[in-house]
């Protein structure tokens, strides 16, 4: 489909009267969100206190909603449409979205932390409520009746009981003054606006809570969707990057001669250790990148042997440390305990390994406006970072978000876009960069490796008297999740820009995640120094719930060990120490759904058969959302092979906006987290990451998918919605691991739960 909307923001504002969009934009909104890069003097983001920064109404009554939130494949656009439709009293199909275009949408911090509905929907809800109020008041004056005698349906305001006395939003919108209607507070994720309109009471909802089909699903399946990979602009070249052979290698020389022969070859770009090629066609760019003779220094190895990783993580001096929870006298209580349990757990580096390896188009124009098309989750932050990278004011950069493959955090789409910026700047033409599989899997920033040491004490009655927790992690913020600085990007680091905005992000056991009421608790956390400071393929960042899956794997597996030491059923044991009613309800609902029979783990084996079946449970809290997951696994005691037969997940995120879309997101979350639990571990040698493709970084395939996956949604209309993007990713690994223990009596303490590790645990646990 051709793009028909080619208006710049400036033209938009000029031609706009009140809330009315003066131009009839004929693009469906479901399809292209790309505006052709129209050179303008400045491209500032709209101000949050203007109503038309959030929504505009066409003469035909259709509504355009503008948001700094973006769709990353979980259906948030549909949910946001339902929320706005509810407040405005229009049909959801009347609404189209403009998402993540920095010159057309307010900076809402982009997507992260499972907050798009919890926080990101709030300003939209309030803006829509205020628009409805202003439109209704105007209708009341036009129709000569008081507002309480009016009702709104599908964007038409009518006198109650007299449907012929009516006026539509489309007729009214042009007369609404949108200036200073809203008061803005906070910024980023926390940005909110309030106006005079009051959002509806939940009890009157008719659109929120319905399982409407996702607006993007049908066009995607029909082959009509456009991802960022499909952006093509006039004069565009194709770019590929060539990374250093070894971590820390310096460029010695580049010999262009072999590449120059390739038809369509344009240029090799070298800036410090950043090397790339641009060509007229994608195939020529690929061939040139392969043909280019690049010589690198051979630096001293910077990584430990992978087999010694966890040892080294336990012995190295931390970069920073903090106490995350302290209650009572854990050390004293532990030494006085009748029974002590102690264990160490390890979690590997993992790769986002996005389905599409990352793609972006940049059109750098230093004397005009630079435009970058990217699928990264935080477009407004990218705008800041690219302005710094180019040395131009922010007002000279526009980032247009276009959906890429699911991103799960900060995968490297940001770095791909920075590569495109660097190549376009050097080439003087728009450049499309497509990362290779190895660029993504090996060179994308990683989810951090973490090691844990825990101990617990039990008294003679089997009650927990003491709990100690220590984590040692590479920082979840070594590469800051907000890509708002030049040093954030791999390509920029290779040119010599240092990463100065990293933060120490810990793997925490503390408030908001610690669900158990033990009398004496001590938890501390350490961040370890990165192996190599600049352009390391093991640099660490956010990967779907920063350290949550790792910490929940360790904490909930260990808790199961404590329950086993107390010889108490794992669910009964957890319930003893849980006060939170919603978490208790999730856990008991999971038990009931599964058909859980109370008994301690491990099961008492009645046979010596090769295969044994067990069940395991784990729970998690994240940002107010409660999750309980039960796994059933079959373990081959001879080979260590295991198969997850069944997963039951009970999920409580307060008010549910769209049950079917939520269920789909949780279902996929379970399979992705199963993949991380069973398969995923970044491999590296002393100089480079050796996980470069789907063979060397395997993920779950169809054969790994459980026979039964059951989701139970606990709806709480009285509780404001919390997140669902990440919480159900947390308990899966521990639930599976606890099921392995239940089946066999063997305890695995390292992820992923590979057959080799299961077999080793079986051997060390002795004859069952």
């Amino acid at each position: 489909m051709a793009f028909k909307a080619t208006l710049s923001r400036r033209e938009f504002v000029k031609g706009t009267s009140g809330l009315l969009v003066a131009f009839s934009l004929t693009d469906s909104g479901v399809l292209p969100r790309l505006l052709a890069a129209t050179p303008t003097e400045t491209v500032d983001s709209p101000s949050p206190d203007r109503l038309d920064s959030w929504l505009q109404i066409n003469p035909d009554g259709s509504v355009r909603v503008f948001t700094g939130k973006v769709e990353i494949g979980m259906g948030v656009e549909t949910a946001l449409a339902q929320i706005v439709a509810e407040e405005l009293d229009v049909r959801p199909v009347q609404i189209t979205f403009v998402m993540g275009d920095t010159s057309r949408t307010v900076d809402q911090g982009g997507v992260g932390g499972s907050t798009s509905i919890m926080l990101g929907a709030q300003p939209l809800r309030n803006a829509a409520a205020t628009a409805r109020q202003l439109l209704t008041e105007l209708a009341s004056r036009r129709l000569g009746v008081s507002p309480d005698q009016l009702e709104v349906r599908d964007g038409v305001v009518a006198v109650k009981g007299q449907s012929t006395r009516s006026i539509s939003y489309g007729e009214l919108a042009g007369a609404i003054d949108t200036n200073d209607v809203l008061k803005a507070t906070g910024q980023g994720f926390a940005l909110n606006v309030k106006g005079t309109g009051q959002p509806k009471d939940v009890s009157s909802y008719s659109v929120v809570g319905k399982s409407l089909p996702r607006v993007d699903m049908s066009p995607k399946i029909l082959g009509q969707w456009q991802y960022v990979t499909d952006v093509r602009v006039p004069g565009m070249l194709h770019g590929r990057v060539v990374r250093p052979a070894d971590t820390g290698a310096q460029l010695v020389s580049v010999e262009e001669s072999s590449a120059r022969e390739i038809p369509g070859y344009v240029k090799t770009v070298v800036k410090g250790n950043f090397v790339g090629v641009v060509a007229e066609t994608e195939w020529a760019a690929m061939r040139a990148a392969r043909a280019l003779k690049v010589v690198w220094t051979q630096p001293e190895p910077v990584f430990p042997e992978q087999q010694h990783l966890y040892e080294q993580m336990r012995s190295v001096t931390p970069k920073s440390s903090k106490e995350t929870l302290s209650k009572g006298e854990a050390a004293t209580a532990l030494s006085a305990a009748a029974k002590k349990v102690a264990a160490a757990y390890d979690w590997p580096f993992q790769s986002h390994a996005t389905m599409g390896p990352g793609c972006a188009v940049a059109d750098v124009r230093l004397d005009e406006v630079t435009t970058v098309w990217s699928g990264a989750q935080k477009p407004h932050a990218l705008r800041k970072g690219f302005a710094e990278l180019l040395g131009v004011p922010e007002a000279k950069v526009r980032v247009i978000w276009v959906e890429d493959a699911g991103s799960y955090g900060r995968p490297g789409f940001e770095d791909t876009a920075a590569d495109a910026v660097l190549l376009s700047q050097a080439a003087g033409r728009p450049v499309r960069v497509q990362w290779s599989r190895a660029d993504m899997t090996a060179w994308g920033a990683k989810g951090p490796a973490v090691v844990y040491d825990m101990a617990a004490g039990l008294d003679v009655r089997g009650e927990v008297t003491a709990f100690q927790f220590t984590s040692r992690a590479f920082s979840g913020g070594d590469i800051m999740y907000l890509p708002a600085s030049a040093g954030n990007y791999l390509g920029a680091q290779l040119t010599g820009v240092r990463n100065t905005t990293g933060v120490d992000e810990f793997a925490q056991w503390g408030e908001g995640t610690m669900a158990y009421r033990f009398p004496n608790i001590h938890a501390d956390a350490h961040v370890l120094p990165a192996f190599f400071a600049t352009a390391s393929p093991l640099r660490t960042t956010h990967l779907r719930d920063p350290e949550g899956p790792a910490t929940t794997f360790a904490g909930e597996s260990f808790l199961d060990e404590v329950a086993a030491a107390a010889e108490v059923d794992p669910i009964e044991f957890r319930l003893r120490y849980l006060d939170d009613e919603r978490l208790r309800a999730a856990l008991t609902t999971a038990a009931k759904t599964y058909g859980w029979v109370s008994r301690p783990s491990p099961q008492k084996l009645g046979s010596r058969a090769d295969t044994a079946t067990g069940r395991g449970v784990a729970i998690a809290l994240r940002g107010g959302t409660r999750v309980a997951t039960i796994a059933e696994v079959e373990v081959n005691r001879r080979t260590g092979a295991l198969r997850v037969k069944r997963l039951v997940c009970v999920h409580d995120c307060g008010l549910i906006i769209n049950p079917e879309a939520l269920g789909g997101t949780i279902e996929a979350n379970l399979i992705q987290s199963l993949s991380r639990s069973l398969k995923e571990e970044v491999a590296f040698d002393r100089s480079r990451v050796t996980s470069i493709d789907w063979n060397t970084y395997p993920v779950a395939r169809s054969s790994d998918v459980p026979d039964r996956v059951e989701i139970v949604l606990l709806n709480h209309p009285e509780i404001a919605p919390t997140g669902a993007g990440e919480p159900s990713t947390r308990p899966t690994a521990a639930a599976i691991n606890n099921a392995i223990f239940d089946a066999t009596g063997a305890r695995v303490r390292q992820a992923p739960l590979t057959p080799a590790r299961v077999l080793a645990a079986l051997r060390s646990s002795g004859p069952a």
Partner: protein
Amino acid sequence: MSPLALKVNGRAHMVDVDPQCPLLYVLRDNLALNNPRFGCGLGQCGACTVLLDGRAVRSCRLPVSLAAGKEILTLEGLGSEGNPHPVQRAFIDEQAFQCGYCLNGWVLTAKVLLEKNPHPTDAEIRSAFAGLVCRCGSHVGIFNAVRRAAQSGKAGA
């Protein structure tokens, strides 16, 4: 570079390309057929799947010259908004995907599977999909869509 005749989704095209260039880049960059998607370029994930004379192939590894003279079908040619293919209908009804970047391979592979085997068992479904990756983990919805399409009895059409 040499001129080459391709037949894609029932239409004839002349392209001037390196005969060694994989079909994927010709479909995408020369013909703007976007649904064969780049996932790995190594034939490991299936995002680039197209049907060649009715067989599912990985277009990222197939030199374009080997596709000349054959019937190439991409997702664009499978069905339309007004008339979706029954397999597409089933995937839509199941709301089967998350980001959808990989769906091209799953939908086309499902079509081929159901043509050969209109009522596959769960094991046969898993086996047919063994070479595909869905990084989001949408497999449960995908399997349900295949069962739904099989039950509709129209998917083999």
